[in-house]
Structure formats: structure tokens, C-alpha cells
């Protein structure tokens, strides 16, 4: 596998769709700001649901997310997650 820098717009759209679904909201992705808190007044992502969300993103984007990017790290906003996925994904074999 090799590290791939993905298109930011594509990653942001995928992330926003997944966080909307996980929060059980009926809004469109463009209503979610990049600096929207993952666990705030609108989005309600908790740690238990977060890992399942990452697996969905792997499948949708066709990438593998490396463990050392996530375990023990904290994520506050949508942009935090987009940054990591955009810059550190590996193309699935």
C-alpha cells in the first residue's frame, strides 16, 4: 500500500455525510461547517460510534486508515477528521 493525498472536497463530503447519518440528522452536507464540533449542539458523535464511522469512510473512499493515526488521539471538529484522512490514507490493495 502507498500513502495517498486525497481530494479534500471529496473527503469532506464523505465525512459530512457519515457524521450526519451517525447523528441521525436530516440535513445536507453543505449545512455542516468544517469547524463544526463532532460532539456539540448539532452533531452528536461519541467515541463508541466513531470507530464504526471510520470503517464506513474506509469503504466509501477505498482507503485504509492506519491505527497509529487514531488510537489515543482526540478529534474535536469535522476538519480534524478530514485532515487526517486526507493526508494519511493508504490506498487499499
Amino acid at each position, binding site marked *: 500500500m502507498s500513502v495517498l493525498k486525497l481530494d479534500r472536497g471529496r473527503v469532506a463530503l464523505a465525512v459530512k455525510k457519515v457524521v450526519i447519518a451517525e447523528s441521525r440528522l436530516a440535513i445536507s452536507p453543505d449545512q455542516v461547517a468544517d469547524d463544526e*464540533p463532532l460532539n456539540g*449542539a448539532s452533531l452528536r458523535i461519541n467515541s463508541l460510534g466513531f470507530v*464504526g464511522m*471510520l*470503517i464506513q469512510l474506509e469503504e466509501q473512499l477505498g482507503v*485504509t486508515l492506519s491505527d497509529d493515526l487514531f488510537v489515543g488521539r482526540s478529534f474535536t471538529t469535522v476538519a480534524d477528521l478530514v485532515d487526517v484522512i486526507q493526508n494519511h490514507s493508504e490506498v487499499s490493495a
Partner: protein
Amino acid sequence: MSIQVPAQWRSALPYLDERLPEDRTPQTRAGGSVQVNLPMELARQSIQQKEFWDIPAPVQEAYRSFRPTPLWRASRFEQAIGSRVPIWVKYEGENISGSHKLNTALAQAYYYHKAGVRELVTGTGAGQWGTALAAACSLFGMRCTIFMVGTSLERKPYRGVLMRLLGAEVHASPTTLTDVARQSGGQGNSLSLAIGEAVEYAARTSGAAFCIGSGENYSILHQSVIGLEAAEQLAEHEAEVDAVIGCVGAGSNFGGLALPFYTEAKASGGTMPRLVAAESSSTPKLTKGVYAYDKTDATGTSPLEAMYTIGSDYSIPDSHSAGLRYHGAAKLISALRHQGYVDAVAVDQVTALECGRVFTQTQTVLPAPESCHALAAAARLATSGAGDLRAERGILVCVSGHGYLDLGAYQQLLDGTLRDQAPSPAALLAAVSGLAPVDSPARQS
């Protein structure tokens, strides 16, 4: 023995009639960050509908020090109990942990280590899982902290010695270290409380992660080496079985033995043997429990999982089979029970250990008290039958561990002082009364 250690684990998830009910996550307060506590590969193994998973080379190498585990026909045991059919034994006790738990401990320690975790924290009942994790952490150079059910540790102090010898820090639960124990009001000594203590301790310790030995889909996947090997070994002996039996605490050795037979039958369209779970009659989740959403530990922060349960708040009667003293069955085992693929038999501990004595004398292998429940269920299917459950061609039974650190239980059997404590029907009913049945809609937040 000509079979090899499997190079892949085999998952049953792609062959379920229905996907597993989703966990219900408790609502958390808004604000604060989100953290990841589970290695991605373990998450993938829990969720993805992929059948075969490569076993990482370092885990395979560790497996080779004790696998393939032996399988033999217990002929003298058959004679002693008057069995009508051959009984084949798959024995998982020949490793330092003394049980099947090392199969998943090695895999989990490998993945957590790869993810950068430096310390693993867990709760353990009988101590087999704790010992397995201590051994795995030692192998992968990680720290290990164990919360062991206090009464169990008191009965089996050498479990503590072994875990400490392997480098682990061992605490008797309930401790004074955690809020969850302090708030338990002395109602402790249960496995869910020990697990709850481990969850809390790991959450506040830098570089640490909580991990669990049984119940999760990935731990059952790792245990599939048991059934995969057994199927090959039976084929070598040209043996046929129509019942596959394991004891159930949460269900990892039973799942590890039985689900490869389920998966193979589903994949090939072949005949599936009866998959029979042997549980303790003092913890009868599969025979007297309800299929409902319940907690997995005492913290109240865990997801609610769809499981057969007697209620996570139920105060389980004391017994020597601490590994079976868990309120719920794994969600995968529970779903298969719900869909009619898993039968269940409840066994008293006196009956179980008496059967263990016969097995010891005829096979010169000392089974753990938990494993004695599987042997007693096998003996029932091989002779009079258990209700409408009978074996007609052959039985495969997993002896999941050895009983060298459980000799206190056998001493009570020899002294005639071993007793059973049946659960109170009223208490069982009360413990499940507030749980949402699995088919109920999720509560809207």
C-alpha cells in the same frame, strides 16, 4: 499430527441470516472531543462481512508454540458414562494461560501494540483471560493491569502469582481505585464490575487501552482456529459428529469451536451439526434469559448490545466457574440462538465437576470447572439426551482449559461440600424487567 496451524481466521458474519442488531450507544453530554480506543483492524473484524482474515505473522508464530492443539477420541470416558456415540475432545489447556483465551489475547495485544498502545487493562473472572493477556503483553513488550474478581482471586491465589510472574499488575475487584467500585455499594465481586473498573482505569491512564477477552465479534473470530483445526483433525480420523458442544461464559470458546462448522455448512450447503452451548445453571442466560439490549459492564457507559441476558444488574450466585459467571451471551452467539441455530443446556456445578472427575480418571486430563459443564452436556447428549437434544453419530466437545488452579473446587467435590445455588426466579425477572426487547424501536434522544 499432520495438520498445520491455520493461516487465516474464518468469520461467520457473512453467513448470518440477518445482520446483527446495531449496538445502542448511550447518549453522552455535548462537548468535548471524540477518542478512538479500538485498533482499526479489530473494528474491521467486528463489522465487515469478510469471511477470511489473514493471521499476522507474529501471531501465527506465537500460535505455533502451542497449536495445533490436540484432538482425541475419549474412548474410556465414553465407556465410563455409557455413551452411545463417539466423543471427540478438542483440548485448549496446553499453554501458559491454561485455556483458549490465549488465541485472542495474542491477536489483541499484537493489534494494540501496532496501534501504539503501551499498556492493556482488563477485567477477569476465573483468571484465565487475565493470565492470557499478561502472557501476550509480556510477549509484545507491553504493560498489563488486571482487575480480577476478588473472591475468585482469593480462591485461586496462584492465578495472581502467575499473572504477576508474567509482569502484570493485579488488583482484586472491587478495589478502592475506581469510582465504579466505590459506587457499587459493596454489591461487587462480579465480572461486570471488574470489567467496569478496568474500563475506568484505562480511560484515565495515559497510553493505556481497555481490552476484553470474550463477547466481541473479533474475539470469537480469533477463536475460530479451534473449530478450523478440529474440522481438519476429525477429517483425518474420518470421524463424523452431529453435535458440537462448548461451555458459554460470553461464548468465545463455544463460538470458536462451533461457528466454523456453522460457516462451512452455510458455505457448502452441507449438513450442520447441532451447536450446543453448555451454560451454568446459576447463570442461565441462554435457557432462562431474555433477548434484549443490555449493558456489557457496570460503568453504564458501554453500548447496549442485543444479547440473551439475565440482567447486568443481577447478582449472580457464587460458583467455582467464574468464567461462566457473566450475565449475557455475546451478541453473535445470541443472534444465532435467536435464529434457531444454537441449542442450550444448563448444567449444575456439582453435576459438572462430578463429570470432570470421571473425565480426569479416564483421560488423565484435568478439566477446568467451566469445561466440565461442556463435558456434562456432552455426556447427557451421548446417553439419555437433554430434552429433545441427542447425538446419534458423534460429539465434538471443547475442553477449553485445565483445572490445575481450580483444585479447591475439586477438593470440595471430594469432601462432599460442593453445593449449587440456583437463581431465584423472582430476582431473574426483576433484573430483566427494565430491558428493551431486541425487536423494540430505538429510543429517540
